[in-house]
């Protein structure tokens, strides 16, 4: 059976490559370029970049408890030796695929929140990812957690952008949804066709709610196109992995001070039931090659210093290796937060590798507390209202703006 990937979760493949193949570079409605500077994001206003790792990243081989005898015992062939990992803290090392992020760690701009999970873990990818994306462990079928933030914050279509062509559930609210910005840009038709399309974006008194919404989406398409045009004009896509392309695009938009507060990108393939070590190390290398250069561009710049990246996966993997040099679906795992506004270092408590719950680590931090911390600290939102219950916060994890 093939690995579960992000595309497997979302159900699609080859989208970005296809979008590029369709040929789309020039941004449309370029005569509206002048409008782009009308609403720049001010200093101090936080930006959240969400990176979803689909498939269930093996947390234990990401932030590795090399000195724990239980770790070595559980994974005779999968365990890393102390000299193989990148040193993080006493007894803990980072996966060797993550050299760029090790440097970020040394700069104090990388936080590792340990043991993050949710109550009564579900080992299904789909359900577990739905739980993470909706922040609703009991009924994970409603609005996404950032979709609810969108519901609570008005109407501007630029507030959240998915750099994946298909909207992830986390960005769909009850009344609003994020916009998608395909890597190929938004190739607006020109001439009369373009004019006719733009004319569809006007409201009409006879519209029902859905038709009004279609018209509004056309209008938003135009305004997104014009707002993003300066950031995208003359932009040369980098020739790299899809995630690196996505984050490079985000960096361009952030640097141009586009008013977007939330970006979403993703990487799939972490379902390492077999031959885990090589696959995971390669994928973490892809993550590293995308995130580290992104952070380097943001570091210390006026437009980039309020950016916080959060990296998560739907669950960790079993402590015990299986018989195929892989690991089966587990529970708790580390969540990374990165950026100038992040208090680097270890947060939360590493779960015990011996006091297990049916072979799985017991989560020590509820993922909704991490969400609450970034909703408050980065998006200046009423986190408890968005999450619909009073949640804890991880004190000191996100710093206020300078």
């Amino acid at each position, binding site marked *: 059976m093939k690995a579960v990937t992000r595309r*497997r979760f979302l*159900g*699609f493949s080859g989208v970005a490559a296809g979008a590029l*193949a369709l040929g789309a570079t020039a941004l449309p409605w370029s005569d509206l370029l002048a409008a782009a500077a009308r609403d720049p994001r001010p200093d101090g206003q936080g930006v959240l970049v969400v990176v979803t790792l689909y498939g269930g990243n093996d947390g234990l081989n990401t932030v590795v408890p090399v000195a724990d005898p239980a770790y070595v015992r559980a994974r005779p062939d999968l365990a890393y030796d102390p000299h193989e990992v990148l040193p993080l803290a006493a007894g803990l090392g980072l996966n060797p695929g993550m050299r760029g992020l090790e440097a970020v760690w040394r700069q104090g701009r990388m936080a590792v929140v340990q043991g993050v999970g949710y109550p009564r873990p579900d080992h*299904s990818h789909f359900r577990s990812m739905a739980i993470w994306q909706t922040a609703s462990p009991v009924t994970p079928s409603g609005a996404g957690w950032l979709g609810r933030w969108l519901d609570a914050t008005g109407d501007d279509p630029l507030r959240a952008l998915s750099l994946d062509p298909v909207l992830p559930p986390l960005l769909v609210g009850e009344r609003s949804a*994020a916009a998608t910005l395909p890597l190929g840009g*938004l190739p607006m038709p020109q001439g009369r066709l373009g004019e006719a399309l733009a004319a*569809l974006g006007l409201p*009409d008194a006879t519209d029902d709610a*859905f038709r009004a919404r279609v018209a509004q989406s056309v209008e938003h398409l135009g305004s997104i196109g014009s707002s993003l045009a300066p950031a995208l004009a003359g932009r040369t896509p980098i020739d790299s992995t899809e995630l690196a392309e996505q984050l490079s695009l985000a960096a361009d938009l952030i640097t141009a001070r586009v008013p977007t507060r939330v970006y979403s990108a993703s990487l799939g393939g972490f379902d390492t039931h077999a031959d885990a070590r090589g696959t995971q190390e390669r994928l973490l290398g892809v993550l590293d090659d995308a995130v580290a250069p992104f952070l380097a561009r943001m570091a210390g710049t006026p437009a980039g210093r309020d950016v916080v990246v959060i990296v998560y996966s739907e669950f960790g993997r079993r402590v015990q290796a299986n018989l195929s040099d892989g690991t089966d679906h587990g529970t708790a795992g580390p969540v990374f937060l990165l950026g100038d506004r992040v208090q680097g270092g270890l947060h939360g408590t590493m779960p015990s590798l011996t006091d297990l719950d049916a072979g799985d680590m017991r989560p020590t931090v509820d993922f909704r507390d991490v969400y609450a911390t970034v909703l408050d600290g980065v998006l200046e939102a009423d986190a408890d209202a968005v999450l619909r219950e009073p949640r804890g916060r991880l004190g000191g994890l996100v710093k206020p703006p300078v």
Partner: protein
Amino acid sequence: MKEDQQRLLRLWWLDRMTAAEDPCAEKLTWFWHGHFATSEAKVDYPDLVLAQNETLRAHVRGDFRAMTRAMVVDAALVYWLDGQANLVGAANENLGRELMELFTLGLGHYGETDVKEASRALTGWTIDPDLRVTEFDPGRWDPGAKTVLGRTGELDAVGLVDVLVARPESADFVIGRLWARLVSSTPPSAGTRDVLRRAYGPATDLRALLAAIVGAPEFRDGASVLVKQPVEWAIGLMRAVGVRAVALTDDEADHLVIALQSLGQLPFRPPSVGGWPDGIAWLTPSANLDRLTVARLVLSRADLRPPTSGRLDWARDVLGVETWSARTATALDRLDEPRELLAVAAISPEYVVSG
């Protein structure tokens, strides 16, 4: 190889939907595909996926009990939800849980104990690795008594389905799902609901239910609106202008698939066992460009006979739209070229939202 088969299967169904003389059967099969949502992303055996599709089609005008009995032992669904890993003494609750949550009852109408007991009833089914069909292995079945929703017995898969679909909440669940996808996002009036319940009845009669839905005043009410799902929208357009999927070149078919992917919907690839979203999730700004891509591609293959005057009325007739709003009429008036005119008409609010 497998990718080629998946590609062929996708195009086969898209073409069948564009060509079918009984489009209603295809629309209903499409509905049930989204209900018992199974994805080739995990079930990467095109023969299993095709077999499930045929099974669903055979039941669309039958009864829900028989359809669900067939589905719980359908090889694609069993594999999708790890049913073959569910055996006596080592339960896997994936299928049992989704059977109650997503297929028959809906959240809130069962408890965790019911899930565990239901999963015991579903034990015993394996998949023959060569023939790719499910087989019942009595040695893997849990023969003990199970209690599901207050009913106790030595339930097996069929017995469990019978218990579940006999619940009154199951009737409302099935009626609600069909209503929300065929008629309106607004639930039926109390009067209509009673008529629908009677039609569905203890026989779980889907044919009678569909007849009652079509006969409901809401069905003919222009205020009942639905956002067309991307595939339904594309198929509707292709049928309207007489373009079959097989009439497309390989390149065009690939572009159609890419645009549908970008819109978020491809046959046999639901995003999860919960099926596809509905309503505003389809109405992103960039979706307008994807729809325009599909419309232009389809229309480039259409044999159009536009009149010399009255083009807007012609476009209305071709697409089956009741009236153009002043906004859309103004937009369409800018266009002389009939293919461009129809392409923009096809992405207009009046066509993207069905009345």
